[in-house]
């Protein structure tokens, strides 16, 4: 992660209960979630979270329900206050913010997209989209052009005068995204934004987000419980379990080097050929090699390469990046990488271990 860091989370703890300070001591001394609940009746939400979220990239926080991912994202705009720790946005500690500064942060620097859309049912789509400027006190006339522009960008041209209930779920979430974009904030928080949509529409929305991201380079923090979705969207992937981070890093890296049975279990069920990219399995070399069947881009996924090779495992490809050779890919390596390492061929065994 060489890029500048937009959001830094340092030693963040969140404990729900009557006396979180007392419980914090126990947690710092190594008590786990189940023990804390059984012995002290406090719920451990987040346990020593440290994440750096790169500017202009998508950070995906993945975990199953109850892993604390929604709690974590709500710390970024302080819808929830932590028990201990720091959240730095552009280097500022937002926990020291006054109410006014906090409102400014929420109005101008961060916007949020919700799982259940959370549109205002009594306002039109246009008014919903222009929520951020209207909170600042701008009249409808002044924000109308901006709001219509973003509505058109998410594919809802001409729907501005409808009410949210007149739209389908997928369209409502497009309004949610347009609402977040209209605030012109650098950071977009997306809390399970696509989880409530059906699979086809979800794929559409993911593609929309990838397109928008290529164009706008916002710092996106995306919460999901779906590994396929997280691998598709993530530049930086954080995997949460029971309130602590199991592993974080580049998704390809996590896929190839799962550090924990819990993650192996996750990883074992996905279509690796679609997720893994040539650069992750190639041999890094700039030397010329004889007998090359063709050139591939370093960012192509393996599925497209298999299709190209026609299943011939004797082929060898030159891997190119910006017109220069960066490595060589043997098809035999490719085939080997499709099988998860670490003896996780039996997913059930991994699940028991996890």
């Amino acid at each position: 992660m060489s890029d500048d860091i937009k959001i830094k989370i340092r030693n963040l703890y969140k404990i729900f209960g009557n006396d979180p300070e007392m419980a914090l001591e126990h947690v710092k001394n190594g008590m786990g979630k189940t023990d804390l609940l059984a012995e002290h009746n406090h719920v451990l939400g987040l346990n020593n979270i440290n994440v750096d979220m790169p500017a202009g990239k998508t950070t995906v926080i993945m975990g199953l329900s109850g892993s604390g991912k929604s709690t974590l994202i709500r710390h970024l705009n302080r819808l929830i206050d932590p028990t201990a720790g720091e959240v730095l946005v552009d280097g500022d500690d937002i926990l020291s913010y006054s109410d006014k500064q906090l409102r400014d942060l929420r109005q101008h620097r961060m916007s949020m997209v919700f799982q259940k859309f959370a549109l205002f049912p009594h306002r039109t789509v246009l008014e919903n989209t222009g929520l951020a400027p209207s909170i600042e006190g701008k009249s409808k006339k002044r924000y109308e052009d901006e709001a219509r522009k973003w509505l058109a960008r998410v594919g809802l041209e001409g729907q501005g005068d409808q009410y949210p209930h007149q739209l389908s779920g997928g369209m409502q979430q497009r309004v949610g995204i347009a609402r977040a974009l209209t605030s012109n904030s650098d950071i977009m928080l997306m809390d399970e934004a696509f989880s409530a949509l059906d699979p086809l529409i979800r794929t559409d929305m993911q593609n929309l987000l990838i397109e928008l991201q290529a164009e706008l380079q916002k710092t996106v923090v995306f919460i999901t419980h779906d590994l396929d979705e997280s691998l598709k969207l993530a530049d930086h992937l954080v995997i949460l379990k029971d309130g602590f981070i199991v592993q974080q890093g580049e998704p390809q890296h996590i896929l190839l080097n799962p550090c924990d049975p819990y993650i192996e279990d996750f990883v074992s069920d996905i279509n690796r050929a679609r997720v893994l990219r040539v650069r992750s399995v190639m041999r890094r070399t700039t030397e010329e090699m004889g007998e090359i069947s063709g050139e591939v881009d370093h960012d192509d996924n393996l599925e497209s390469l298999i299709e190209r090779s026609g299943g011939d495992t004797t082929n060898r490809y030159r891997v190119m990046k910006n017109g220069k050779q960066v490595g060589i890919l043997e098809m035999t390596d490719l085939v080997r990488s499709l099988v998860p390492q670490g003896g996780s061929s039996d997913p059930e065994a991994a699940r028991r271990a996890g």
Partner: protein
Amino acid sequence: MPPDEGRMATYDFIFDKLGLRDWCDGSGAGENGSSGPMSMADLLGQTTGDAVEVSAWDTPFPSLDNLHDACDAIPQSRDLTTGLESGFLNIKDSLKVVVDPLTQPLSWALNEMLWVMQAVPWWIMIPLLMLITYAVGRSLKLVGLVALCFGFLAFIDYYDYTMQTLAIIFVCAFICVLFGVPIGIAMSRSDRTQRVMIPILDMLQTLPPFVYLIPLIFLFSVTEPKLYGIAIILYAIVPVVRLTDLGIRLVDQDVIEAADAFGMTSRQKLFGVQIPLALPNIMAGVNQTIMMSLAMVVIASLVSAPGLGVLVLRGIRSLELGVGLLSGLGIVLLAIILDRVTKAALARINSSQPK
């Protein structure tokens, strides 16, 4: 020999055992022990001449009266009610100094409204009411119903009574909303306020309406309109308070979270999100408040509230069956109109913002 000597009271032994006999006789007997009015049982006891033997089965509950028999220093239960009464009469004047000016605008409002509603000639008033109905409900059928009902009531010469009742309801329901909605909002924003208010609302709702009237009669003169105005408002304010509180608390938490996440101030949240989304519930509360003022305005005719209630009262007092039935019908018609019109308004709000 004092008259008490021959009488044995059940609970004598308690005071004897505790050594309180002197206190009982000393403070009680000297001042009012023998001079206080006697109970029927005492009188009976005196006529038979000897003490009534009480078996264990018939042991009376140690109530004030029974303890008084044993010890004169204990007051009778009669003293409790007279004590309450004299206590109220004692604070009445100072209470009046505070409450009288505060409630004076209510008297003015009622007087003015009663005057206006009766001074405007019927051929302006009825079309005006029809116009209001249309503005609120946007339904010609409803306007027809209003015209029919008022036409009927005017035809049987109940026009003035109807207008009086309507004037009182308008003023009282308006004041209920004016105070009830802010109280409801305060309750929805603070759990503590809610905890304090709920027993008060429960009490207002369950106390028999006649009970409000008694202290109010002592406090104000029967000729003042605010006397019945206050009684109606106290009785009718409950639903609008409760439903405002409920409506705001029922607003979708996700939407509130979105409002927070985009940096709304709590004032923007209240007026831009919570109240608009609670409006269907608040309007249901207004509907109930209007219906309850109508119910109370009939009872309030006991304390000089004019209107159809007076006719009902006349029907009861002089057993004029026809008058009673007809005025009852008039009240029903008025109730139907008020209910339909407010429900139509509610339906319009609902259709403009389905969830």
